[in-house]
């Protein structure tokens, strides 16, 4: 059932068994688990059923670290949350992502992936992803096999594709019919009020942009407003706990992680007829492939996890070309399609490589003018970020329309990410070269000449201009068994608070390379089961 909170009488007291703050993928998933139960569930959503500018502006903040997107655009305050703009790409985290890796500071979840496996299985239909199957074989055909790489350092994996599920629309009717699940729209929590002991949440203060205010008290509370808003609300709720709720160890807001998304370069097959269909999206909802390092490669090389996509020019057009790196890659690939590559230098490289291969493309230039197949593939990467204490969300003195302090995001990352980026491209170049499949070119803005001469890209310094995030906000209320190392425990309960839980990617201790929504939903199901046990 939906309630427009703007119509509530002033100072209304709402009571419930469970109160969920935020109706995105996490909040809606948890709420749905209680449909049909006798328990009273209250969901507080800042937005309405459609986006509106005034509400969205509440999400504004400042970037004070590595350049990042305008914060206001990176998450959505509407019923359904940021599922209103997600792309639907899905894959569970890898087993190695859950493990302690001694070369990755702060790595290790409190449990292995097998613990989440049943929840991933349940999350799949919720995200409209079909069967829970991430094998590559079923998607290979004779015309689109996986790349026959010579070594075992990289492997092909597949991403599954959700339509994408817009949770606010797909589950709207179900929620509307649920008598004991009440969604209060236009409801902005402004304070988590603790009991005087500081060990339990006593009530929430809620405000509407119209000026109406009300309170909510419940037996249990779940904070599910995303990786930027979760720490914001905890830090701003400082009447009883001066450092903010759950922040006895100064961890709330720290360890902010994104998936770094630089453009790695361009892959040019020796033979333009090399079938790479498995790696292309644009085939409806069919999964598509990418390359990622084996766990052994990560360990041996001391790298973070990453993935490399191989996208032909049409995919670039789909992705847009608003940033420098895309433009550079696009220009390079378009040149290749016209038969020119870097003033023909790339064509010469391919000719030399092809000359020495078995298939011997005698009349290469004539051949590629006839062939419509893309001649080069752009290599976007997605790289895990090492948990970093200094990468953080803090509060500023600026206030939003409701008087809430706005945030400052100080996004930081270091040498390990940079080295993973460089080595990822180098490993790919070595693997495809060893297999005789083609050659890799670093994008120009990845390349820095050292004294005019360099022997390898290990001398490449800095990031390409194009490094970005993917609107994935993670780690700011990280999970750990030890209260000195994390904000929530393995049940997602705030260590210091008996009745406050956190859902969403802010609890991820590490983030792998994969899109977070499926894991958010799986963790939310896990949490919902735990809450049912506590409430019944």
């Amino acid at each position: 059932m939906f309630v427009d909170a703007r119509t509530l009488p002033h100072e209304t007291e709402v009571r419930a068994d469970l109160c969920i703050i935020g109706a995105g993928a996490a909040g809606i998933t948890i709420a749905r688990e209680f449909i049909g139960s006798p328990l009273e569930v209250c969901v507080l959503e800042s937005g309405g059923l459609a986006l509106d500018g005034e509400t969205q502006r509440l999400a504004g903040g400042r970037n004070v670290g590595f350049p990042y997107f305008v914060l206001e655009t990176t998450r959505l305050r509407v019923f359904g949350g940021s599922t209103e703009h997600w792309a639907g790409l899905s894959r569970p985290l890898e087993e190695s992502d859950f493990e302690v890796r001694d070369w990755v500071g702060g790595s290790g979840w409190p449990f292995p992936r097998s613990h989440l496996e049943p929840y991933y299985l349940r999350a799949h239909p919720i995200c409209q992803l079909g069967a829970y199957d991430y094998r590559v074989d079923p998607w290979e055909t004779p015309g689109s096999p996986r790349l026959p790489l010579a070594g075992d350092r990289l492997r092909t994996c597949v991403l599954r594709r959700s339509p994408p599920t817009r949770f606010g629309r797909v589950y709207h009717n179900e929620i509307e019919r649920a008598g004991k699940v009440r969604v209060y729209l236009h409801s902005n929590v402004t304070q988590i009020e603790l009991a005087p002991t500081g060990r339990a949440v006593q009530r929430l203060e809620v405000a509407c942009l119209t000026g109406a205010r009300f309170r909510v008290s419940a037996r249990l509370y779940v904070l599910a407003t995303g990786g930027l808003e979760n720490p914001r609300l905890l830090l701003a709720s400082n009447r009883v706990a001066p450092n903010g709720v759950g922040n006895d160890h100064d961890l709330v807001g720290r360890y902010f992680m994104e998936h770094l998304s630089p453009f790695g370069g361009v892959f040019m097959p020796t033979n333009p007829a090399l079938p790479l269909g498995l790696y292309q999206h644009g085939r409806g909802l069919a999964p598509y492939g990418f390359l990622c390092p084996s766990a052994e490669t990560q360990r041996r090389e001391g790298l973070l996890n990453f993935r490399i996509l191989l996208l032909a020019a049409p995919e670039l057009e789909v992705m847009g070309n608003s940033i420098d790196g895309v433009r550079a890659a696009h220009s390079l690939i378009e040149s290749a399609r016209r038969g020119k590559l870097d003033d023909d230098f790339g064509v010469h490289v391919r000719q030399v490589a092809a000359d020495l291969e078995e298939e011997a493309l005698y009349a290469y230039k004539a051949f590629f003018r006839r062939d419509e197949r893309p001649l080069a593939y752009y290599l976007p990467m997605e790289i895990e970020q090492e948990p970093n204490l200094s990468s953080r969300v803090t509060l500023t003195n600026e206030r939003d329309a409701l008087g809430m302090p706005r945030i400052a995001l100080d996004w930081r990352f270091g040498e390990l990410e940079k080295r993973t980026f460089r080595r990822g491209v180098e490993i790919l170049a070595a693997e495809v070269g060893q297999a005789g499949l083609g050659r890799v070119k670093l994008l120009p803005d990845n390349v820095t000449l050292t004294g005019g001469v360099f022997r390898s890209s290990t001398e490449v310094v800095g990031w390409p201009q194009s490094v970005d995030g993917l609107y994935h906000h993670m780690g700011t209320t990280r999970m750990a068994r030890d209260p000195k190392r994390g904000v929530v425990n393995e049940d997602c309960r705030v260590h210091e608070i008996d009745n406050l839980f956190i859902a969403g990617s802010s609890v991820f201790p590490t983030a792998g390379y994969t899109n977070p929504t499926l894991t958010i939903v799986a963790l939310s199901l896990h949490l919902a089961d735990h809450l049912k046990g506590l409430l019944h």
Partner: protein
Amino acid sequence: MRRSRRRFLRGALLGAATSLLDPLRRAWGFEAARSAVPPDLARRLVQSLRDSSSARAVGAAYLRTMPDEADVQTLLARLLGDQPALSGSRSAAATRKLLRRCIRADFAGERVVAVDGWLLAETEARLCALAVLV
């Protein structure tokens, strides 16, 4: 955990002991090869490439970044140091096969050079450089 440039060049797949011996082996091979280069070998190697204009374009770019290798004997010696059998190959097909083996081994061992941004095997880059000089 920084990997050194040297390690990258010498090959991640070689063990530590091999890595230590590798420079010595290569230096010995270089000198031995330099003193036993057949006179027509450079031309035979270059002829294994069907498109000499492409090879020369790549080779010129390589030599711009590696001017100390702008010498036929040096290039031949380095090529033969890695694959002595090249000097005895009789046909273009056999030569291509040996070169292909070298190139793949280069990539496997990450003996890679960046030429105009392209990550190439040392062997193919040197072969192209040879095409500029003969």
